[in-house]
Structure formats: C-alpha cells, structure tokens
C-alpha cells in the first residue's frame, strides 16, 4: 500500500513514486498535477483563485493559479526535475451553482470555475508546460488522486464515474 498524502485548499505537495497525493472535493477549485516522467516525481496543488491581483492575502501559496505554478516549478527543479520534461494535468473548475450567474448583481464572469481554468492554462503556457490531459468544467464535484509513479491522475466524479487522465 502506498503512502497517501492529502492536500487541502491552497496547499501543494511534491511526492516521489512511492506515494500518492489526494485531494478531496474539488468544486470550482482546480487540481493541478505536474509530472516529470523520467524522475517519476509529481506534484499536486489545490488552487482556489485565478490570480492575486485583487486580493490581499499573501501570494506565496498555491491559492492562486499563477503563484502555484511558479512555486511548484521551483520546488520540482530543486528536486532535480527538468522543466522541458514536465507535463501538466488539470482537473476541476466546475460551476457548482449553475443558476448563480447573474451579471447584474455580481459583475461579469462570476463563473469562477471557468476563470480558474483559464488562469491555470495561461500560467502553464507562460512556463511552457504542456497540458497532457484535463477533466474540467461541468457542474460536478471531483476528488482526485495523483500517482507519480505512472503519472496517472484519477478523477472520481460525484456522479460515480472514474476517469483516468
């Protein structure tokens, strides 16, 4: 049995191939996995918000898409990974309360799930990390499990389906 590491909102974690990283109950949040296929080192982050531009709290955590990507990248390079080998997998970014979109009351683009997805894609593109697989959007919650040995990201949807990307 592999050791399981559990990450919470705005946390991220690096794991060797002997471990599995899990994150429970992703709604509009994003689970971002980075993987080095040769070193078999993986990292998983649970991202809450797209960017820290309008936000006050400290930016140095995996809470924001942009800071999460650069933090993870930095840690992975420290651990001996190479940037040109890294691939990314993305899950989450759902719209949990579909009828919620109300431009008059809440301003444009309240669909935070979509904005989160875009922000993660942009942040990855900036660092030139390709997205190898994704399971995003929709109106369902997801629990994810990342295995750095195989690079598999298992997505358990709340509907009972399991998707491996």
């Amino acid at each position, binding site marked *: 049995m592999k050791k399981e590491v559990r990450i*919470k*909102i*705005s*946390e991220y974690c690096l794991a060797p191939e002997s471990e599995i990283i899990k994150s*429970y*109950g*992703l*709604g*509009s*949040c994003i689970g971002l996995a980075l993987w080095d296929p040769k070193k078999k080192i993986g990292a998983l982050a649970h991202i*809450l*918000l797209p960017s820290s531009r*309008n*936000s*006050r*709290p*400290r930016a140095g955590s995996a*809470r924001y898409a942009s800071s999460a990507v650069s933090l993870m990248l930095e840690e992975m390079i420290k651990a001996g990974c190479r940037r040109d080998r890294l691939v990314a997998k993305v899950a989450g970014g*759902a719209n*949990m*309360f579909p*009828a*919620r979109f109300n431009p008059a*009351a809440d301003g444009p683009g309240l669909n*935070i799930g979509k904005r989160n997805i875009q922000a993660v894609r942009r942040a990855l593109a900036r660092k030139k990390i390709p997205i190898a697989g994704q399971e995003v959007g929709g109106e*369902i*919650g*997801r*629990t994810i499990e990342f295995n750095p040995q195989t690079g598999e990201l298992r997505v*358990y949807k*709340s509907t009972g389906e399991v998707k491996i990307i």
Partner: protein
Amino acid sequence: MKEFVGAGLALPDFRRGKPRRYIKEDEMRAEKMDLDRVQVDALQELCNIGMGHATTALAQIVGKTIYFDVPRVIKSNISRVPELIGKADEIVVGIYLRFQGPITGNILFIFPRESVLLLREIITGNKSRELIFDEYQTSLLKELGNILAGSYLSVMEKLLGMNLIQSVPWFAFDLAGAIIDPILIQLGKDTDQIVVIEAEFFIRESKDLRGKFYLLPDPNSVLLMLKALGLGA
C-alpha cells in the same frame, strides 16, 4: 496526578505556575480578528435566536419538533473549512443563499442524503428511496432553504437593526467539499481567516432527519455585526 483536559477551557497549570490553554485548534477563538469572549458569545446568541426561529418554521412544515445544538462560532483558516463541514467527499445536498444590505454574507444548509429522503417523504408523501432531483424536487428544497433563511434573517434584521435582502436560493447535490468551494472563493478573495457560525438541527425520534446550518459573513461584516450589537472595537 490526574490531568484534567477540557476542550475550549483555559486551565491554569499550577505545578509550573504558568497558564496553559487547551483550545482545539480549529476552535481558535477568533484571535487575529481580536474577537473576545463577549463578542463570540454575542455572535453565538445571535445565531441561537435565529436558529430558534428557523427551526420553528421547519417544525411547522414537517409537523415535528426540531431540536438544535448550541451554535459554534469558529474562526478558521479557509483551507480547513471543508473539514468543518464534514467529510469533503461525502455527497450531500446544499442550499446556498447570499444576503446583502449593510452587512453581506452567505447562508448554507447542508442535508445528508438520508435527511433529504425523509424530508421529501414528510412533505410530499413520496416514499421512494431514489434521489432524482427534477425541477419539482429541487424547487421544493430551495423553497425550504428560502423559508429557513428568511426566518433566520428576519431575526438578524431585528437584532442588528438592519434591512437585509436575501438572494434566490441555489441548489447543489454533490461532494460537500465541492459545494463549499464557490463560497470559499468569494471569501478567499479578501482574507485567510474567516468566521464560521455553525448549528446542527435534528428531530429526536429519528436520527435520520438532520441538517447543518452555516452562516459565513463576509470578512468585514463580522465587525459591523458586532458594532450593531454595541460591541464594536
């Protein structure tokens, strides 16, 4: 010598002559926001009275006595809120409303699967064990949330002397952690530490009908609420 450890109590350690505090970590009494004991009690009492009204409304709908536990006022880091709500990977029904006015915030009801079945049976007489949320059933639950939140907010209006407007209710049937996500995102824009006021309600005859009520005021609104109660800094 036997050691007495009580959660949430401050016990002096006489042997070493320095005070020791036994406070469960997730119940850290609002330290960064500088809420003192009196302020926490005031928020608790506000919720207590509000829950009294809301559960009375629910009791009238289901025709059974509803009990509720003493509300808890919890200051927590955003990343720990899903744990407070329960198992993040448990599938539950969530009904979510926002309220606006001089203070703003979020109200969330969480019902476990069994409770929803029972609620539906009591209200509509439908005995089926299947959970299919068609338009009628989601509307039923939303309306229930609307009534509960309405009676709760009317108490807050009276006690705080404010006019509050509630949004339409939103409905989700999903992982508890996923349901709370959009609310945390809303709150997480401004702060790390938030105040969660939680109360659990149930009927005594059967453990199956139970639900949780959450009041998550926006960060600035907590102080405004205290000010309105005459406890502002």
